């Protein structure tokens, strides 16, 4: 299929969708606030940008995600490696890590609220928790998946432990680490939105939640579009290429 055909199909689908939406907004017998027309969403966008609200909230949410990514990487990778090098330790801790990963950070939020109250710290703890576990878990799996023959090979050549870690284990685990980061951040982004709704310390989640209180539905829709678009952009430009590159550069044959 040529790019022209794709573009045409795209545009006609988009146009059709917008048309149906506008007609529905104009004709359906519901209160105006339930279904704002597409133009209203565009107006909400300009309104929120002119007032400085949207950029501030976007920056807030992104800042929290960046912090979570850095902290999770700094904690999850060393922990994963430390646990992964010993088969016994890895087998022992794997069920624990798995369990705590499936109890997402949001489920811990009420406990965090008791500990830290309604503030930024609660949000950060919940989101960091959500991102750390997939990273640690995948790092552990990555370390375990490095074939023993490489490790033993370096050992017979007399390499010290740290050298083995740096030259064999770390590169071998990198694809899994990248996957873990991507997975963790995907969970983390959703947890962030939920936490911002519950704790209320600014951010995109808070924005769409409080907009609902005032029935500013166009703002809700806009917020949702921004939330989805931000993740897509980050995933397309950063996470997926990084994951892909680590697999292709350091991925092992059995992948």
């Amino acid at each position, binding site marked *: 299929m040529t790019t022209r055909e794709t573009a045409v*199909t*795209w545009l006609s689908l988009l146009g059709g969708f917008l048309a149906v939406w506008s007609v529905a907004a104009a004709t359906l017998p519901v209160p105006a606030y339930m279904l704002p027309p597409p133009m209203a969403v565009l107006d909400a966008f300009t309104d929120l940008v002119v007032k400085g609200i949207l950029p501030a909230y976007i920056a807030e949410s992104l800042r929290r995600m960046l912090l979570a990514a850095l902290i999770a990487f700094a904690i999850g990778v060393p922990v994963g490696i430390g646990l992964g090098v010993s088969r016994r330790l890895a087998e*022992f801790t794997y069920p624990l890590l798995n369990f705590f990963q499936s109890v997402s950070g949001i*489920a811990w939020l009420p406990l965090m609220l008791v500990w830290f109250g309604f503030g930024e710290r609660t949000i950060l703890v919940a989101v960091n928790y959500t991102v750390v576990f997939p990273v640690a878990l995948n790092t552990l799996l990555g370390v375990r998946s490095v074939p023993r023959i490489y490790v033993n090979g370096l050992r017979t050549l007399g390499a010290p432990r740290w050298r083995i870690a740096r030259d064999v284990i770390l590169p071998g685990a990198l694809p899994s680490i990248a996957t873990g980061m991507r997975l963790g951040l995907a969970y983390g982004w*959703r947890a962030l939105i939920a936490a911002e709704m519950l704790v209320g310390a600014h951010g995109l989640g808070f924005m769409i*939640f409080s907009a*609902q209180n005032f029935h500013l*539905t166009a703002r809700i829709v806009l917020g949702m579009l921004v*939330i989805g678009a931000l993740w897509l952009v980050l995933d397309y430009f950063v996470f997926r290429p990084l994951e892909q590159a680590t697999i292709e550069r350091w991925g092992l044959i059995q992948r």
Partner: protein
Amino acid sequence: MRGLKPFARGLLPFVALVLAWAAVTRAGLVAEIFLPRPEEVLRTGWDMALDGSLWTNIVASLGRVALGLVVSVPLAVGAGVAVGLSRRLAAVLEPVAGFFNSLSGIAWLPLAVTWFGLGWVSVTFIMVNTVFFLVFFNTLVGVRTVPRVFEHAVRTLGGSRRHLIFQVLVPGAMPSIVAGIRMGIGFGWRALIAAEMIATSTGLGFLIFNAQNFHQTDTILVGIITIGLIWLLTDRLVLQPLERWTVERWGMVSAA
């Protein structure tokens, strides 16, 4: 009986964890209100099981999961197959479905509350749309990857469109569909708990969020453990075997 030893071995870390928990609380390192003792949590859990409050909340949450699945999976598979029949449409809609994937879940809650008000409808809607978009996307991808050779074979043998759909496309896409269902339940369960905290007054999410109001940390921990256990059991006993069986039955790559 065969699975008993690995099961016991899998249980050991958790026993160690509980022991560590008991040790920390006994040592007085953390205030009682922040981290109650394991026996407190156990007692509270037992009381809640006896007076029924635990069950009503579990049933409420699981009921929403079940309802969400019943509604969304057929819709998603149907829509995915319908769109997948046209290669052109599928190629265009796939990125769109991907976009909605990244949007799914809790971000829909304010909109859902605007439309349906507070209550189980909004919360179930979150579950529905999380599962729907994931399964729709996976169905699309699954249908697309069915080798054309099979389609042509069916057509050459004089098969109708119905044959094509039910005997080639759907089975061929099954592994992808089931993987999508598993992912959908995974994401959906989390989104459901979060939604219950915000928008309704029954369910496990509400249970733990409400307990936070009264600083009842033992109730919170009972809830958290229940949430984790339910997911663990569902994933281990239902979803993973299902996925494995689907791949073995219909997977086009032989299960190694």
